[in-house]
């Protein structure tokens, strides 16, 4: 066919235009122009950081200085020069002033010195640590126990070693600060239920069960844990353990009980909230306690079945990467447990 000449010219120009568009570099209006070194230096000079901490006057305006206690913080205590009766420290069984414990600790210093100079994995395991773990397991009626050198670090290291990203933790609203830190370190999904309200907890568990039915594959690898305290440090209430054990088996959620305040206090022999309610201790997956309140020593422990507790020996951060408990405090704790068993 034949076309008019102008048609060919227009088409030819269009082809040339297309080739130009394809091969010639074009500039994007929104591209960032890289900064020159001089501009970077100016930015660095201009930048002003905040002060590391607020100024001294501001801190002093909102907080008061510590009270200084002189002498033994026993039943009678001298605070800032005033002699008072002690209703403030958590010395439940009065072991701070106990002569027998002081004598045992003194013997220990003469044998082992004060510090342990190493973590548990590198010559920091003493025979008194192993003895204390055995005694705690025997006293609470569990298979196995593990000792930490600081009460706060116990629950804060135990929770992240089991619960990881993607797992679900059901935690009481009024739980203590150590549990909150443990939960934060674990990066799991947290569901808070109203303080000591079993109905609220059950409704949340039921809701999760419904979601699980829709996504069976995901729910078969999502671990679920409930973390409660024996006696809540913030409110002083006791948890409803029988109901919690029922919920555990009904909704297949593991139960961790944190017994810092209730160990040595509740129950006929001081074995904690499980003895108080007459529930066999095997029903609880893991029981954490602190030796800093009733036993008047330092440190904490976790006890339960060997299957559960042994895992923390390699993954509990506060156990693996920290020096072990000084032997004299372990000896004092053993003596305190002896006294608890005898009297």
């Amino acid at each position, binding site marked *: 066919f034949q076309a008019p000449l102008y048609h060919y010219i227009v088409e030819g120009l269009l082809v040339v235009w297309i080739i130009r568009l394809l091969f010639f570099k074009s500039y994007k209006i929104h591209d960032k122009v890289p900064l020159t070194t001089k501009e970077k230096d100016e*930015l*660095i000079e201009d930048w*002003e950081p905040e002060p590391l*901490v*607020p100024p001294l006057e501001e*801190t002093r305006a909102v907080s008061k200085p*510590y*009270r200084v*206690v*002189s*002498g*033994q*913080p026993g039943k009678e205590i001298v*605070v800032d020069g005033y002699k008072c009766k002690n209703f*403030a*420290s*958590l*010395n439940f069984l009065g072991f*701070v002033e106990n002569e027998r*414990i*002081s004598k045992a600790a003194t013997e220990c210093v*003469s044998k082992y*010195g*004060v*510090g*342990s*100079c190493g973590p548990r*994995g590198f*010559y920091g*395991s*003493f*025979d008194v*640590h192993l003895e204390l773990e055995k005694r705690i397991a025997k006293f609470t009626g569990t298979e196995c126990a593990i000792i930490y*050198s*600081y*009460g*706060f*670090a116990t629950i*804060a290291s135990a929770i992240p070693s089991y619960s990881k990203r993607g797992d679900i933790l059901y935690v009481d609203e009024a739980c*203590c*600060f150590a549990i909150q830190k443990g939960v934060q*370190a674990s990066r799991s999904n947290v569901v808070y239920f109203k303080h000591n309200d079993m109905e609220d907890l059950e409704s949340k568990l039921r809701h999760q069960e419904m979601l699980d039915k829709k996504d069976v594959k995901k*729910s078969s690898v999502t671990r*679920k844990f409930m973390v409660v305290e024996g006696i809540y440090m913030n409110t002083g209430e006791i948890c409803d353990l029988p109901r919690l054990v029922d919920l555990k088996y009904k909704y297949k959620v593991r139960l961790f009980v944190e017994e810092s305040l209730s160990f040595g206090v509740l129950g006929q022999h001081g074995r904690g909230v499980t003895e108080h309610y007459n529930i066999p201790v*095997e029903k609880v997956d893991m029981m954490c306690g602190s030796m*800093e309140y009733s*036993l008047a020593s*330092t440190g904490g422990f976790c006890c339960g*079945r*060997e*299957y559960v507790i042994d*895992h923390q020996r390699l993954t509990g*951060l*506060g156990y*693996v*990467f920290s*020096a072990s408990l*000084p032997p*004299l*405090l372990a000896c004092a704790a053993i003596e305190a447990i002896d006294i608890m068993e005898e009297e």
Partner: protein
Amino acid sequence: ENGFKRPAKLQQMDSPLKQFQEDFEPTPLYMAIITYINYGVITLFGFLRDFLRKHGFEKNHASAEAGDMDGFVSLYASFENFYTRNIYNRLHDVFNRPICSAPGPVIKIMEREFSQSGWSYKFTGKVLDGIVNLGSYNYLGFAENSGVCAEASIKAIQQYGNGVCSSRCEVGNLDIHAELEEKMARYLDVDACVTFGMGFATNSMNIPCLVGKGCLILSDELNHASLVLGCRLSGANVTIFKHNDMKDLELKLRNAIVNGQPRGYRPWRKILIIVEGVYSMEGSIINLPEVLKLKKKYKAYVFLDEAHSIGALGATGRGVTEYFGIHPKEVDVMMGTFTKSFGAAGGYIAGTKSLVEHLRAKSHSACYATSMAPPVCRQILSSLEVISATEEGKRRIQKLASNCKMFRQGLKKLGFIVYGNDDSPVVPALIYSPCKVGAFSREMLSRGFGVVVVGFPATPIVEARVRFCISAALTEKNLQDALDAISSIGDILQIKYKK
């Protein structure tokens, strides 16, 4: 005190007192290949044995779930414990050795007998006596059960009891805590100091008080787990720079200030550089003059963790600042622990008065955790007294320095690859292969020396090593015997890689 002189004016940064010299020889290629092959064979056997155990051909010695736990989601992923079951268990007797004496230069180890390829053990009842301790953190030899410090601790038990049962801001602040903080501040030559009951908790509970959301933390590659946890709990953004590499740190600082926060490009609120004085796995010392130069140029803050260097470096044991001749007021936050050189437990943070008062008010540890036990506090006070004000302290510090030099030169002469700085009290010698690591430790124990071997995951996978911790309580004879034993084992296992 003790003939100690502070530089009259702040030291010029251009010419640091010490020439900075460290060596990190790269892994020889053939050793890397052999190590990978080692791990490969162990892993293959691991799969094989898991298979046998699962199908019942081999008895499964691991502990099991309770009988009534059907329907519960399994607690551990099956692969999570692969390393524990198949690799760690073979070396079970090398770790967690229980001792029954003070962790001094010579210890008594309780002998254990392992059965069922590492699953279970029992005590034979025998105690191995006279084992030379090259593993505990006993740098100045204060792990003693007699002497001035032990007697002072005993008196403290009788005076105060064993524990305190209360947190610092309630009725847990005893007068000896206040005394300790004042003396520690004077020793370090800073304004004020605050102490805590546990070294690990000092880091993980106080870094969140200093930085928060909208701040940037620049942390060294090989920082300790407590620092990493503290950084994570604070909620700030964390950037990692290569170990002791000042060029990398400068590059990251520049990029951070120029680009600002990743979303929204707002400027950072503050930048905190977190470094350690002595790194315990590498034996290296931080290049502090350079870090402080960068800090001044880019207006960042420096957090220095002196867990291993306080008491061990410097002419009078005042740590890495004294080692380089820098005034401690240049470092914003100085943190340390009492576990290593003072033979006790606990940690401290020292700095300006505003920093310390802020931490006393806001620190998580002050409000929620109990304070340090009185006998431990008294031990620190008496050992601090010895270090800073007596001839005995001076003697110990000099002995530590001479022991380090002698041991490190000795190892290098024998032909071992040794990492780190010549002056650090931690001496790691490389072994690379996981199998030789176990054999080395067992052979040393049979010759009467207790050593610490570390492998994956504490170190990179091809760099398994043995880490010696030098102590001022070890005599020249101990060290010479140790070098002889290491030499003979080195010949048997062929780990003298330099020859």
